[in-house]
């Protein structure tokens, strides 16, 4: 009889499963009230960890220096906002001041004072300021210059470079489009051809990769999907295939992995879990319809740059051009009335106001169990998986994923039912806007601000 040797993948997987199931078995053996205790989100510990981070970091953080100080602002401020915690005036003012020093006179934010502007740090800075909210924070963003920065990063192929002469990938598309959308400066020039670039990154597996040809990956899948929604081209993706890949990223550990046959990681609670929050508000996904095989509703012809053939969720929008019909077997969408032409800057707002009409396609309670039982570190902060150390990135994305799960069955303005919340109801976090990953209240405030102060830009002056 043959006993095949375990491959490296299997060995690593079984090691993690052992660690995780040890926790679950412990949990299962407890009486009910002790289980509830074990499922408690240790808010105070997390808040303390986060506050200390905002105030000062040791030298070991030097290696994160260049890219990550605006990121650390965002990871920390967003986590605090999810926990419903406010930052005091002094910290708020210091943050606004610091981020202003990261802002380049020609637009965009760098990783620190005096550094070149970079799309990722721009995304982090803008989201940080939106999370803080208030006139001072929001008006500190130089939108006119930021727009020119985005235009400068834009490539003819459709993608964006992360910085001058920097790398091009799906992250760059998302950070650029997300920022433009939330600041009400998204236009056709920025949107042009982004869709075709992202489409070229959907792999044979169904997920989306960082660059054409690379492996389908959770982080890039979220970025690609969110971007396609924001530019009103989500039905060009092969959604059935994407969904099929996505659902299998949740394993028996209850959490999500980033790629097929890789290990579970708490941060994918947001990247993968968040993708589900996006999918359930897409009409072609939530509505019950018969799928017509071999019907393409989107051409890959990128020469039409007008918005006429991109009317939201209307099927067969090709204008009789000679391009190939994409044999995706995708969902046909009929008869939705949508204003024409599309105002890109309304998409985010309209999206969150759609009602949720389907059950989540992943197991939201199981994911909450993973986050609460396996990713809470001793003494505050959240982690990748048991055995790993805490960091602000994982704290942010584990908590974001937790919020997603808790709110997944609720509309934006409806209360969350207790059965949707794993553990005590006090675990409930603030809801987020899943396209941007900022807390919903703060999104609305920013929306109000940036639509009132509209383009052409006033020179917003700090006072």
């Amino acid at each position: 009889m043959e006993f095949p040797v375990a491959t490296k993948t299997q060995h690593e997987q079984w090691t993690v499963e052992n660690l995780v199931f040890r926790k679950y078995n412990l949990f299962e053996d407890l009486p009910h009230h002790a289980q509830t205790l074990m499922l408690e989100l240790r808010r105070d510990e997390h808040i303390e960890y986060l506050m200390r981070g905002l105030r000062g970091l040791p030298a070991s953080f030097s290696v994160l220096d260049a890219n990550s100080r605006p990121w650390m602002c965002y990871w920390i401020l967003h986590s605090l906002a999810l926990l419903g915690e406010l930052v005091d005036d002094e910290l708020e003012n210091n943050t606004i001041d610091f981020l202003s020093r990261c802002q380049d006179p020609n637009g965009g934010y760098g990783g620190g004072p005096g550094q070149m502007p970079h799309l990722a740090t721009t995304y982090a800075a803008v989201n940080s300021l939106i999370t803080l909210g208030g006139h001072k924070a929001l008006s500190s963003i130089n939108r006119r210059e930021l727009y020119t920065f985005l235009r400068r990063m834009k490539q003819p192929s459709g993608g964006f470079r992360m910085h001058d002469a920097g790398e091009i990938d799906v992250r760059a598309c998302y950070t650029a489009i997300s920022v433009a959308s939330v600041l009400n400066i998204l236009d056709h020039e920025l949107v042009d051809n982004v869709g075709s670039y992202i489409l070229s990154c959907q792999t044979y597996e169904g997920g989306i990769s960082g660059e054409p040809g690379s492996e389908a990956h959770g982080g890039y899948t979220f970025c690609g999907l969110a971007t396609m929604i924001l530019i009103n081209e989500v039905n060009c993706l092969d959604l059935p295939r994407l969904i099929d890949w996505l659902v299998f990223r949740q394993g028996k550990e209850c959490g999500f992995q980033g790629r097929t046959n890789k290990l579970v990681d708490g941060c994918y609670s947001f990247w993968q879990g968040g993708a589900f929050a996006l999918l359930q508000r897409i009409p072609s996904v939530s509505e019950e319809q018969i799928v017509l095989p071999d019907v393409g509703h989107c051409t890959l012809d990128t020469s039409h740059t007008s918005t006429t053939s991109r009317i939201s969720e209307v099927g067969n929008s090709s204008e009789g051009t000679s391009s190939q019909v994409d044999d995706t077997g995708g969902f046909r969408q009929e008869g939705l009335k949508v204003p024409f032409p599309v105002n890109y800057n309304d998409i985010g707002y309209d999206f969150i106001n759609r009602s949720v009409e389907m059950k989540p396609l992943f197991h939201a309670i199981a994911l909450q169990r993973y986050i609460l039982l396996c990713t809470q570190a001793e003494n505050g902060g959240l982690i990748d998986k048991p055995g790993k150390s805490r960091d602000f990135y994982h704290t942010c994305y584990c908590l974001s994923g937790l919020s997603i799960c808790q709110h997944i069955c609720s509309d934006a303005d409806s209360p969350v039912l207790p059965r949707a919340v794993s553990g005590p109801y006090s675990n409930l976090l603030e809801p987020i806007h899943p396209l941007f990953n900022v807390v919903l209240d703060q999104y609305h405030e920013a929306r109000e601000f940036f639509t009132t102060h509209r383009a052409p830009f006033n020179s917003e002056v700090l006072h």
Partner: protein
Amino acid sequence: MSSSSSSDEERRWVPLRSRPEFSDVIPVEQDDGPNPVVPITYKEEFRETMDYFRALYKADERSLRALHLTSEAIQFNPGNYTVWHFRRLVLEALNHDLHDELALTEHIARGNSKNYQLWHHRRWVAEKLGTSATTEELRFTKNILSIDAKHYHAWSHRQWVLQALGGWEDELDYCQQLLEEDIFNNSAWNQRYFVITRSPFLGGLKAMRESEVCYTLNGIVARPENESSWRYLRGLYKDDNSSWVNNPQISSVCLEILNAKTNCVFALSTLLDLISHGFQPSQEFTDAVDALRISDSEQRDSDVAKAACFVLESVDPFRANYWQWYKNKHFQNA
């Protein structure tokens, strides 16, 4: 700690203010403001290096000493994209030998290879060196992959090298070797797909399909729980659903696995996919699916697709909502 051969590390640190070659430079402090948030308590050497870097960067001094300074700054913080960017400007201005860059990036990679900046720099250098760099780039990535066979940046770089510089000849064999070592390595399957669809030495997807289907089905039969091979199989028929449905080998393998009654999830899922594209399952399939029902209380459905969905809701409970949704989407009126 570091086993590098960098002379910087073996020498004792000499403060920049003590170095004669920098005596004319006035260092520029970081403009953090009076009360910065997320402040980092920089070590003195790091702070000083960056203060001197800022001075040369602001002055846009593209000199040899600037080049050396960027090396030191990069060692302290390999993630500083501003320093890497300036280094590239300096290299171009000096028309400097780029082969040193290969050594530098390899050295940095030994410390931490999961760094976008180092890979972007490597790509920039390789592009400039052209096809003379092909062998070295393939060796470099293979080295990293021998430690971590799923290293995302290494695979992306390798793909870029193949497309921009060539070297396809042995790539399919390389994938084969990796899959023999670990058939669950999804990155290797992804690379295989990349090779068979894009290699100028092979005939493209359609030409390769038959042999690839054979290879993949063998892998599936050996390891029916391996998601990678099922997805790869499906990928072979991307944009050609009618061929997918009409290949009897595929449904036959599904049936074989269903009858074995272990690791059936992907077989069931594949069967559903086939049916939704027009496959007409025989009675054997109905019987096989029926035999998988967990309990008699489960709804019996004469429709094999709906029956399969019901079975999946039981045997694959994480995706229970998905299988219900799938059933409603595809087989509502079946």
